[in-house]
């Protein structure tokens, strides 16, 4: 019952976000601010994580599957697929849910408990649309870009380790990551990550928006926001994969 109740409230909230934006110019400006605040500021963490994961994955692949019967370039090929299919989209978005989700939910939650949201509403401004829509548009644009960046940096990490650890030659590595390349998989990853971006923003904003009480409750909301964003990312990951690749 509680779950159905929250789900209903969430759907009402999302429709509120999308109901008639008052002034496009204001929203347009906000979108750029949010891209900068949420997206650009995440490039560092995305780069570091992806680089190290790329390095580790290729070592694992070689360690576990290294076998005279399997050509070495296969290790690079598998590494690429790990990055493209799951790591750079799903795992990275789980990490972003922690970083960006808690940021969104505590920002909006604080605005709620200090009556700033009421102040917007009393001015006649649709607070849900004004606060959330720019974040959502910004995130849906910037997350797929971060994901593509992550794939690229992960592959560079893998490449550096293959050479420095003498796992394979540079030519083998390049052959591996080009082997059986299907651009549909990149499309799959882009669509997936845009979907995750939507979920992270809407769920985190939802928990922040309906915070009540004080700072303690804002903290609790952002914990819930991150947990539910992660669960929904995993569930929708399964659904999208089933639909697009199953």
């Amino acid at each position, binding site marked *: 019952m509680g779950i159905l109740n929250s789900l209903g409230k969430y759907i009402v909230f999302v429709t509120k976000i999308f109901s008639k934006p008052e*002034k496009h110019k204001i929203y347009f400006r906000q979108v750029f601010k949010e891209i900068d605040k949420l997206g650009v500021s995440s490039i560092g963490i995305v780069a570091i994580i992806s680089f190290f994961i790329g390095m580790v994955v290729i070592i694992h692949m070689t360690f576990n599957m290294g076998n005279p019967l399997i050509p070495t370039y296969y290790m690079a090929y598998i590494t690429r697929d790990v990055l493209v299919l799951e790591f750079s989209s799903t795992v990275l978005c789980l990490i972003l849910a922690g970083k960006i989700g808690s940021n969104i939910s505590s920002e909006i939650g604080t605005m709620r408990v*200090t*009556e*700033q949201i009421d*102040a917007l*509403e009393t001015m*006649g*401004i649709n607070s849900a649309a004004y606060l959330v829509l720019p974040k959502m548009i910004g995130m849906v644009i910037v997350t797929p870009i971060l994901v593509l960046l992550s794939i690229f940096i992960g592959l560079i990490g893998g490449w550096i380790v293959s050479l420095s650890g003498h796992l394979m030659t540079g030519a083998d590595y390049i052959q591996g990551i080009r082997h059986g390349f299907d651009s549909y998989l990149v499309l799959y990853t882009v669509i997936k990550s845009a979907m995750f971006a939507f979920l992270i923003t809407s769920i985190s904003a939802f928990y922040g928006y309906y915070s009540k009480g004080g700072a303690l409750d804002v903290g609790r909301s952002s914990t819930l926001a991150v947990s539910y964003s992660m669960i929904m990312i995993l569930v929708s990951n399964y659904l999208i994969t089933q639909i697009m690749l199953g």
Partner: protein
Amino acid sequence: MIRLENISKSFEKNEVLKGISVEFDEACTNLVIGQSGSGKTVLLKCLIGMLEPDSGDIWYGEDRFTALDPDQQRTFRQQMGVVFQGGALFDSMTVEENIRLPMDFFTDWPREQKLDRVNFCLGRVQLPGSNKLLPAELSGGMKKRVAIARAIALNPKYLFCDEPNSGLDPQTAIVIDNLIHEITLEFNITTVINTHDMNSVMEIGDKILFLSDGLTCWEGTREEILRSDNKVLNDFVFASELMKKFK
């Protein structure tokens, strides 16, 4: 004119308002007084639609506010200016951006005109030149004054202030009181102020509503308040030695 008919509001078992009926007039500073916890803020929030009364009706002129749906209520609120008890400034925006936000949304004024209006409002609350400060850099009283400047930015028809001068020194408090009183008369605003400041009551209370126990315990003008023989009201008003002497 704002008319309340039998407004009640409870939170679970706590009956805060038990049927309030009152009229607030145009070009008139209406004060709501009462002890801390008597439900002044709750009443104000019902008036502006931030809380939904359990029963009763609120009329703004000929419009029945309580019959509007949330979207219509929001649109209706473009005619209101509200000063919250804590100020509720947007802390990611500068003072200027705070005051300009309603203009950005609801006017097509060019940049200079908006800036002129911002400076005018800041001048009215005696904070000229603080345009680029952030709320975190303001004192409590300055925040209040910026909140008032923001509330009057678009010449509202209705102005609501929750304790506009609590936390201010007596001098600034009087300045703020007079400011609100002046603009009320100047622009024919229907103003409703929550306060416990007896000074304000004596200075600007055109009409006073005394809440006690969730009911309208007394209503009248500031002249009448001195002569009233309502026991509860007298205990509240003449709590301090100074006011006793005044009487």
